[in-house]
């Protein structure tokens, strides 16, 4: 099913490493926040108030305008039962929607299969970064995986100039199906040709692109710019994925956490400006999540792995505001010193799937979950 220009698009921005919820959405009136954060708490004069209860640190300033415009949903206390506090396992749970056992299929890979069961568009999903996240992996569902710069995307990037076209033509011929070479060779052939086709499709995106927006010179801003370029080119891409990190701030949380969020929010600011300038903002939402939140009590210079965290959904069609409640900071309510999650992450996915992407959430997230109403 080739997508049309106005089909809904989701951009996932993964905050890898465990983002510190309490220093991201700060309950600035809560004395327990100050008690826990003697070393890494954000001083009052550096908090931008969202309302009478919560604020964001000054280094996330660009998000404030989206909040004021009612286009930023804050999803409180997101997590899953029995949080393992391991980065990799936790990330796996987010990617596969399997908190109890090891899953093999990524949730967005399943969505891509729904969108394009016959693999008519090999750039339905585009990942920016060297490593294919498990959320995108389903056997025989193609993903364009842009490891570096979009301009350099493709096979044999070291061969450029006039030779390139010729060499890639050889590559394409070498990967054509041949009689009697067996299923594994055939599979290799299809996969290679799918990726090559993706390269052909994607390479027009930077060529067609022009903008008055200047993106900051950070890795996450470059990824977001690449996403904007592909999105503007109307290639039918529906799922974009990128990540930034590492948010694993065990030590030196200040200024580490600030540098990370400055890069993310300034990148998002440029990205949203770019989308609006090109009149391509209406059909995009951005989901930001991290594998877990961090411990309430700081450790003197940072914070250790925790449980409940925060997710954000941003976009023109998002109904801004708080969804759910921040879990209690009272010592008797903590689980091993951590916020007890009170919103299942699959709830967030379910709203996006049902209300935005218009696919049945249950088979994607392995169950039925309450849907916070941040989308109409």
């Amino acid at each position: 099913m080739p997508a049309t220009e106005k089909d809904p698009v989701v951009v996932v921005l993964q905050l890898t490493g465990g983002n510190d919820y309490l220093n991201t959405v700060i309950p600035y009136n809560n004395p327990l926040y100050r008690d826990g954060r003697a070393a890494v708490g954000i001083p009052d004069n550096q908090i931008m108030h969202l309302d009478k209860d919560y604020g964001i640190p000054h280094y996330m300033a660009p998000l404030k305008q989206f909040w004021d415009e009612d286009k930023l949903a804050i999803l409180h206390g997101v997590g899953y039962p029995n949080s393992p506090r391991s980065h990799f396992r936790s990330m796996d749970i987010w990617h596969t929607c399997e908190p109890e056992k090891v899953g093999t299929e990524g949730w967005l890979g399943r969505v891509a299969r729904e969108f394009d069961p016959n693999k008519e568009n090999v750039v339905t999903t585009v990942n920016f970064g060297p490593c294919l996240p498990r959320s995108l992996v389903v056997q025989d569902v193609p993903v364009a995986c842009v490891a570096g710069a979009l301009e350099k995307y493709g096979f044999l990037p070291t061969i450029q100039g006039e030779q390139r076209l010729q060499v890639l033509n050889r590559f394409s011929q070498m990967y054509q199906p041949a009689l009697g070479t067996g299923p594994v060779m055939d599979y290799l052939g299809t996969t290679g040709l799918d990726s090559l086709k993706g390269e052909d499709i994607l390479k027009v995106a930077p060529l067609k692109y022009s903008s008055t927006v200047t993106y900051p010179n950070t890795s996450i801003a470059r990824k977001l710019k690449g996403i904007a370029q592909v999105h503007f080119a109307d290639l039918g891409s529906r799922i974009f994925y990128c990540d930034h990190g590492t948010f694993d701030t065990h030590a030196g949380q200040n200024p580490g956490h600030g540098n990370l969020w400055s890069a993310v929010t300034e990148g998002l600011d440029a990205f949203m400006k770019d989308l609006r300038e090109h009149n391509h903002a209406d059909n995009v939402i951005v989901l930001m999540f991290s594998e877990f939140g961090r411990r309430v009590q700081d450790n003197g210079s940072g914070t250790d792995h925790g449980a409940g965290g925060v997710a954000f959904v941003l976009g023109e069609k998002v109904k801004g505001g708080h969804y759910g409640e921040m879990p209690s900071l009272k010592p008797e309510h903590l689980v091993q010193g951590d916020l007890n999650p009170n919103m299942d992450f699959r709830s967030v996915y379910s709203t996006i799937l049902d209300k935005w992407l218009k696919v049945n959430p249950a088979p994607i997230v392995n169950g039925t979950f309450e849907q916070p109403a941040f989308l109409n």
Partner: protein
Amino acid sequence: MAHQDDIALMAHLMRRAGFGAGRDELEARVAKGYEATVEELLHREAQPPVDAYTLLRYQPASLLPGGQPPMGNLNWMYYLVNTKRPLEEKTALFWHHVFATGNSKVDNYDQLLEQIEIFRQRGLGSYRDLLLEMAKNPTMIFWLDNNQNHGKAVNENWGRELLELFSLGAGNYTEKDVRESSRAFTGWTFETKIPRAPYGRFPWKFEYRPEDHDDGEKEFLGHKGRFNGEDIINIIVQQPACARFICRHLYNFFVADEAQVPAWPIEQPRDPKAIDTLAGTFKDSNFDMTATLRVLFNSDFFKNARFQHMKSPAEVVVGTLRLVGGHELPRPGYGELSMNTAYMGQDLLNPPSVEGWHTGKEWINSGSLMARVNFCAEKIGDPALPGVRAIINRLKAKGTLSPDQLVDGCLDLLGPVEIGADTRKELAAQATAWGQTSWDNDSNAKLADLHTSQMLQLIVATREYQFA
């Protein structure tokens, strides 16, 4: 000069028993002989171990890396690239595939690297001893929750995987056997100490707690007694299913791609006679891996299985780095270099689950294929690297090359690689478009280097090159 068939066979042996070899090494090994080379590989102690002091000097953080990549990955990559005992390291990788233990839960590369060191030291010895060692390995105990397996509250995780994934395979035991095996391992746990923050962690140590052990009578695989863990292992290794299961793993890893492990109870082995041969030796030698691998490498079924095995990402990355050379010192950037296996779908020391990695065709998806091809092409396309220079120099020594000679020369020195007629036609067409290759003056030489490097890149980009 060595006969071409001998070179091809030796190249096959070195790809499988190690991570490949350059032409100089292959010629030297052919001169010694095939069986003598097998013996040399099996007697790893004849070669010096990897120099850990260089690693310490360049990358001190990789010695006790804690829970964060890429320092753990870097450590093993340094060993893989530098070892003079290729079969030792290859066997360690084999056991890592079988006893798949991951940082996702262990969160401690210190412990995972210690487990790999056990595979180096004992992986070519008795399987029975290795299995017992794994039962006492704190990393494994934590990975499979045996520290939660108490006399009065049995946790079956280790007891089950021991049977299903580490020894017999599904279908060769009952649920009651799982229960009884788990009971026998109650009280097998490890000491934990509070970390000496910020100076890293104390090593974990096995501990047997008799007061937490269920000493009652058990009935396991038809035997009755007040079994403890070691008794269970002694019963397991005597099962015919055990020899067949481990030998099928050996066949899949060293000889030719099998179905994925979960399908083994229903799908016959690709070569049942080969499994019979290996299992027979395994049993007769008291589960000796050296004896079993000796039979394997000297067998016809092995020699005839060229390019019947999809290279794992570790084989792609390590094989390429050893071939091109210049990556011996763990300089800055080595951490990123070592993550390349992960980009291709094999995050070493962090398999996706206790089942390990699915192999063969399942290594390939659109992201991983491009990562494989581009990694190999970038390295093999760099004429400044000593191994690439060596290939160019050998071609140069032949004088002016016709297009066919360029293709054949490159195919030969990268393997020899065997390719299909259609693929060869494309390579030849490209070489013909370039014309003759000659190093007879400076400007020709520059072009010759370029064309050779691009031909090498096209070859590593072929489908055929994904096999070993």
